């Protein structure tokens, strides 16, 4: 058994290393499988009759809901596209978010085949009347064609799809079909565009688009994607951990919003299989009663309650795990022993996760006294989530996209739970700032600006400048995505915004961004009973909250400090007004005055990367930041830029 297997108390939906007892909850697998097959059959035989379908899968913590996802993903292979979505807790889920997650996960692989390749390959194979079981082989044939012939064939395929579904979005479909054959940089750009994310100018040029996908086009895009996928590899959209939508105090706003989203998906999409997973007890007591009849009829088309393993299945599971051990000291039931095996087989209420914990204990011995302390396990859980968040940020960087603002908003709201002075609330959906900060009765609007293109960012900054007449504004953007010097117009718009009363600009550090994402994930998992201590025992949500408050100290995180240290309007009003908007008060708070080190260094080096200069300057001057270095370099005429990251000192005659 690999260490990963033993440590994997919580199922990883994307794990390639899965130990599975197919017999356990076979009925749930079969139900989903037959639904997917029916969707595919219907898409091929009666496309006009194709609708979406929905199923609810319920079970206690550790019963195998996420495992079911991993099992089906592996079983289907290229015959379906799987998307796993944990809901946004504090902000509403939108169609754009669902589209973004769906396309983002198209880059994930099952059996070493990317889902986007499986989707397009099986679609093309079906349209050509070939076997859809081997999409990669079919894609290879297309790759072997010269570019002109491939383009022609893709156009023919496009026409055939449009004959079936005239409402399909042609430009969306054209780019989707091209994605598997594109070179890496172009594929990244295509997927960014297809996901509805904000593309930068280079990406748009690369794919021949003039603008990113607008909000109003997202429903048509998702509709096109789900319908064409149904011909070869239908999309299975799994919403997990829905118990996180239950609000304290009996409010049902989030659940109703979720119900509306699902109703919209069920009514307007074709060929989509939706699976809603939740804790059984929460579903019956809080979730289902919150939905109205119309929502229930769309959500609850089918229901599956997961069973716990029978004594025989428990033994079979243990045998499967033991078979994975490289070294076995004795025959079965080692390492358990007959007595323990009998106890485990007979004990009421044992979930597969509990059984795995017992197995691990038997194999590794009783945990030491340190493990009794839940904080040890919680620290490990935190580290694991922090690592995953860093990975997500890295992945976004590699794809040249920005992490979804909605997730960061969720993270900030989670952070606000631990900082009394950080009273954040979600703003209404149409508000250009996603959050409202209440400081002693004064409202400040907080916007997270994760736009990839200068145009959309510029638009957002203009809207915020207008809004600033009513409330002071705080704008947040990841530091690694600092505005490049070539975005002159956008930088001007930022200056204008920062010149408004009380405006503030915060560069979000990578570490803080990762912490926000990890904190949100930790709190969601705590509610779902998926956080365990070092012994593998579940830790209650209240314990996790107490631990996070004391061990993580979110109040000391840079982002929380910067938000709570914003000045009140009354304080700003007391200051004499400044005639010169630049540098603004907002800039002052986060951007120290350039030191001159950057230019001196560049003259010495002649040619250098921006990263190097930032590194060297921040070493010399602790107050310097990336922003001050960029400001210093852009303000000098002696500096020539090559793209965004290389600078050179001009030779002065």
């Amino acid at each position, binding site marked *: 058994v690999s260490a990963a297997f033993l440590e994997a108390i919580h199922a990883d939906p994307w794990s390639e290393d899965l130990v599975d007892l*197919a*017999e356990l909850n*076979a*009925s749930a*697998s*079969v139900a989903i499988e*037959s639904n997917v*097959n029916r969707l595919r059959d219907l898409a091929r035989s009666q496309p006009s009759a194709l609708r979406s379908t929905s199923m609810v899968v*319920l*079970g*206690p*913590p550790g019963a195998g809901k996420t495992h079911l996802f991993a099992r089906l993903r592996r*079983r289907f292979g290229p015959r379906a596209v799987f998307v796993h979505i944990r809901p946004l807790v504090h902000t509403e889920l939108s169609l754009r978010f669902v589209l973004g997650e769906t396309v983002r996960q198209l880059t994930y692989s099952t059996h070493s085949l990317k889902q986007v390749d499986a989707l397009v390959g099986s679609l093309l194979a079906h349209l050509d009347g070939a076997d859809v079981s081997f999409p990669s082989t079919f894609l290879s044939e297309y790759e072997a064609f010269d570019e002109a012939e491939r383009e022609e064939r893709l156009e023919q395929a496009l026409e055939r799809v449009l004959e079936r579904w005239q409402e399909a979005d042609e430009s969306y479909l054209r780019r989707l079909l091209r994605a598997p054959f594109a070179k890496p940089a172009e594929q990244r750009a295509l997927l960014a565009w297809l996901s509805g994310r904000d593309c930068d100018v280079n990406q748009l040029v690369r794919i021949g688009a003039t603008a990113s996908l607008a909000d109003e086009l997202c429903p048509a895009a998702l509709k096109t994607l789900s319908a064409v996928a149904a011909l070869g590899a239908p999309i299975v959209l799994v919403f997990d951990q829905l*118990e996180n939508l*239950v609000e304290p105090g009996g409010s049902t706003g989030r659940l109703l919003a979720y119900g509306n989203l699902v109703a919209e998906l069920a009514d307007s999409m074709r060929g989509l299989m939706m699976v809603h997973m939740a*804790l*059984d*007890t*929460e*579903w*019956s*007591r809080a979730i*289902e009663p919150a939905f109205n009849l119309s929502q229930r009829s769309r959500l609850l088309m089918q*229901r599956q*309650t997961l*069973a*716990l393993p*029978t*004594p*025989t299945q428990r033994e079979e599971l243990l045998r499967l795990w033991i078979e994975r051990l490289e070294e076995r000291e004795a025959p079965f039931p080692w390492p358990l022993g007959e007595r323990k095996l009998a106890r485990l087989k*007979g*004990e*009421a*209420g*044992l*979930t597969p996760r*509990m059984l795995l*914990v017992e197995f691990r204990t038997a194999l590794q011995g009783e945990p030491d006294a340190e493990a009794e302390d839940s904080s040890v396990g919680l620290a490990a859980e935190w580290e694991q989530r922090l690592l995953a968040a860093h990975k997500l940020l890295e992945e976004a960087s590699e794809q040249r996209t920005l992490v979804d603002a909605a997730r960061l908003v969720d993270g900030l709201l989670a952070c606000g739970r631990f900082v009394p002075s950080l009273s954040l609330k979600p703003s209404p959906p149409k508000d250009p700032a996603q959050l409202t900060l209440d400081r002693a009765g004064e409202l400040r609007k907080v916007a997270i600006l994760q736009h990839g293109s200068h145009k959309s960012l510029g638009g957002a900054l203009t809207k915020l400048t207008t809004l600033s007449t009513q409330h002071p504004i705080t704008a947040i953007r990841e530091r690694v995505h600092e505005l490049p010097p070539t975005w002159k117009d956008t930088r001007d718009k930022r200056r204008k915004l920062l010149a408004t009363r009380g405006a503030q600009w915060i560069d979000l550090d990578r570490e803080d961004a990762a912490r926000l994402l990890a904190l949100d994930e930790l709190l969601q998992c705590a*509610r779902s*009973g998926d956080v365990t201590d070092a012994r*593998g*025992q*579940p830790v*209650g*949500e*209240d314990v996790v909250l107490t631990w996070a408050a004391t061990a993580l100290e979110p109040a000391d995180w840079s982002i929380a400090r910067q938000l709570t240290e914003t000045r009140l309007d009354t304080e700003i009003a007391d200051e004499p007004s400044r005639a010169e908007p630049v540098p603004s008060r907002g800039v002052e708070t986060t951007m120290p005055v350039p030191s001159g080190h950057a230019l001196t260094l560049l003259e010495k080096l002649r040619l250098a990367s921006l990263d190097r200069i930032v590194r060297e300057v921040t070493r010399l001057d602790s107050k310097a930041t990336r922003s001050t270095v960029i400001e210093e370099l852009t303000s000098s005429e002696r500096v020539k830029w090559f793209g965004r990251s290389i600078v050179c000192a001009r030779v002065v005659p």
Partner: protein
Amino acid sequence: MTTRQKRSEPKVPVEDLVRSAREAVEGQGSVKISALGPKGLQAEVVGQLVALGFEFTGKVVRRPLRAQILGALSHGASVPLKALKDHVAGAAPKEVSALSALLVNEGEALLVLRGKEPTLVAVTATIVSGDALRKFETELKSLSSVVTGARKKPRGALLLGDVSDALERLRVIAVPNRRSTSSVERVLRAVDEERDEQMGLSFVPSVIRSLHPELDPTQAQAALLEAAKRGLLELRPEGGLARLSADELELCPPGPQGTRLSWVKRSDGAMS
């Protein structure tokens, strides 16, 4: 001269073959591998059926033998061991006999004597066993000696009232065991009555409250655990967000790893 053309068989999707095979196996108990479709697809069909929880013996695919045997014992049926092989499909008599012995050992079925015939019954059957059986034997011996003594004496006789008393004593001996079994039955009834039809689950505190005053909470909890041990019920740990009141927590039996067993459902058996 006419050329004989090779007729190609229409292609049947594997999914359809699996669906029809599944229906056949569920209906008949077992199906021969040769009846599963074209030879080239048989392995695939068998693989998928096995993944669904059916058993493959090399010659046939069958419903799990355990489920077949337990199914034969449902609704109060009793099956002589000798005749058990006639109630299942796709299994050799030796295998049936070995599995029935295992089921008895694991407490999933009971072995009783009917006349001289060893007979298998479901665990819910009302039986006389253990201490009760020993007491029953002692009482019977004592009654037998009285009957023999009376018969050996010339014009010997017994008072009908004494005979009735002796028979009542025999009946009462069986009562403790009978009561423990019936607690399980009462619990099963209560679970059915309290079931949320949508979810298929019953809330344990409601089940225990509904049994009062017939069974006090401790007896009801014991009966629930007994029924779970026999594989009749599935007790499930509480996964909610601290929704149980202190009273409800008291009524839920403790579960593994510090949990409380707050929900219960009827077991589906090996195959649902």
